């Protein structure tokens, strides 16, 4: 039924995708340049030594591990809070529902610098010191909406009756949660969690405001910012960027298939 795409559409879509990927190819290319401090085009020579150098650079590992930890914690918090809101929002109508939907979107719809500076001002008022935990606090705030969006879309797609059907068949709220809600929501939460994780892992703007002093608060993007501002062995940052790129490939593909399959199963109840 569907005819083939017009050539002009194919060309413009292709050109758009190329625009998205050329800079990334460049990042890959400069992971191999023999220049050390600042880049010039074309690269004067190519080498693979930076991979070994990056592997042996002791200062990469703590930020990498910290970023993984921060992203993990922020994702867990966002999963809990985002699921709670989506459950509440998909249930009965209540006063303030519209305001709440606005509030959830706010941390990501307002520029990061605003969220950052606001938290920067508020955290000392809560008698908290800036640390890796305050980074988690900031990240979780804007990750909630990612989880929420995925979860609420799945709630909407779930054939509305299945929760009632479960209760009708004798399941209490907890049994329904465990046997019906979680299996059906699970893939959406996993996908949302993966996106939230990736978002937190690369976040730099809010992080600069909520990070504490010293190595204990240095996430990978902050490390990269330092490295890029004060270049020494600049190809190493490209190596790190490339490795991160390569390792996010599978989770993103996974998230895609999870939400896609989820849509099919959830719609099948009809």
């Amino acid at each position: 039924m569907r005819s083939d795409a017009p050539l002009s559409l194919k060309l413009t879509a292709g050109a758009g995708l190329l625009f998205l990927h050329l800079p990334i190819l460049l990042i890959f290319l400069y992971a191999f340049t023999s220049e050390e401090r600042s880049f010039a085009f074309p690269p004067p020579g190519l080498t693979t030594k930076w991979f070994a150098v990056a592997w042996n650079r002791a200062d990469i590992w703590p930020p990498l591990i910290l970023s993984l930890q921060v992203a993990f914690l922020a994702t867990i918090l966002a999963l809990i809070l985002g699921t709670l809101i989506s459950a509440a929002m998909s249930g009965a109508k209540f006063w303030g529902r519209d305001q709440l939907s606005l509030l959830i979107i706010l941390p990501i719809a307002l520029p990061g610098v605003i969220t950052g500076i606001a938290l920067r001002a508020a955290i000392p008022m809560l008698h908290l010191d800036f640390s890796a935990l305050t980074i988690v606090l900031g990240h979780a705030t804007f990750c909630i909406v990612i989880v929420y969006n995925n979860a609420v879309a799945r709630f909407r797609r779930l054939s509305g009756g299945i929760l009632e059907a479960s209760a009708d068949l004798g399941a209490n709220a907890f049994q329904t949660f465990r046997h019906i809600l979680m299996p059906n929501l699970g893939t959406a939460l996993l996908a949302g969690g993966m996106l939230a994780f990736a978002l937190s892992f690369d976040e730099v703007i809010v992080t600069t405001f909520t990070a504490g002093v010293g190595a204990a608060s240095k996430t990978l993007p902050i490390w990269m910012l330092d490295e890029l501002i004060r270049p020494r062995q600049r190809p190493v940052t490209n190596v790190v960027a490339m490795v991160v790129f390569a390792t996010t490939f599978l989770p993103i593909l996974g998230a895609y298939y999870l939400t896609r399959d989820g849509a099919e199963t959830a719609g099948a109840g009809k």
Partner: protein
Amino acid sequence: MPPAVEFRAVTRHFGPVKAVDSVDLTIAEGAFFAMLGPSGSGKTTCLRLISGFEQPSAGQIRIFGEDVSATPPHLRNVNTVFQDYALFPHLTVLDNVSYGLMVKGMGKTQRYAKAEEMLALVKLGSYGHRKPAQLSGGQRQRVALARALVNEPKVLLLDEPLGALDLKLREAMQDELKALQRRLGITFIFVTHDQSEALSMADSLAVFNQGKIAQIGTPAQIYTQPATRFVADFVGSSNVLPPTLTQALGGPAKWSSLRPESLRLAQTGPLTGTVQSQRYLGTGTRITLTAQGTELAAFLPAGQPIPPEGTQISLTFPPNALHIMDDTP
């Protein structure tokens, strides 16, 4: 023996809207009971009040004499076949059917055995390992039925159970449901907006209009003796005659109903008018005419000469066919 379900002055508001307005209703044990009405008439809300998904704003609901006002759905020994079946998409047919037994704590072997038994009853014995998505509409309907019945409920609720099926399948299922109900002896309550379905399946039915019950009775009572203009109009497309016409035909000054099939062509008769349209229905022909200012329909059985459009005709009817109704609409 208390009735299976009893409503005592039950009211359910949604904001300012009274979905169910002070309804009294008694459904006997073992009945095949239908709730009939147009959409928005309150019939589905009544069903959800019995299952517990809605709670009455006022009044009392009793199931087998027991006040269930404080009992949540999962503790009511009542099961529902949902309109869209609401099968669990992630579970196999067997797990769907045995779900109710599982949450009540029954062991795997035992509950699977009972579920298999029930699947055999609905003629789906070999489908246990499939997922709902791999079944046809009729098969899903049977799974939903098996899933509800396996719990041996005191009352089975069916929400527009045949609405999503095509005509042939629907007729077959009507017979099957009826046979199943007789065999199990469980009280079935089903909701429908299709009057022919209600009339053909139910032992007794309630006709709903605007949150109230317009009439309760057997299908024959409802069909031949509609209590109100609404029932006469909604059930079986009766001719509704205004008080003046009723009086002209020899009745009291009240609204009355006259079934199209009780009208006969005659040389002279109390009703005269011009034929406006005719529709061939196989078993006969339905003609419409305007008589004494009221639009009437008459059903003429096959084998009679049909007066062409534009002809002036007279109609007559047996004396007991004119049914006098309450004045309430």
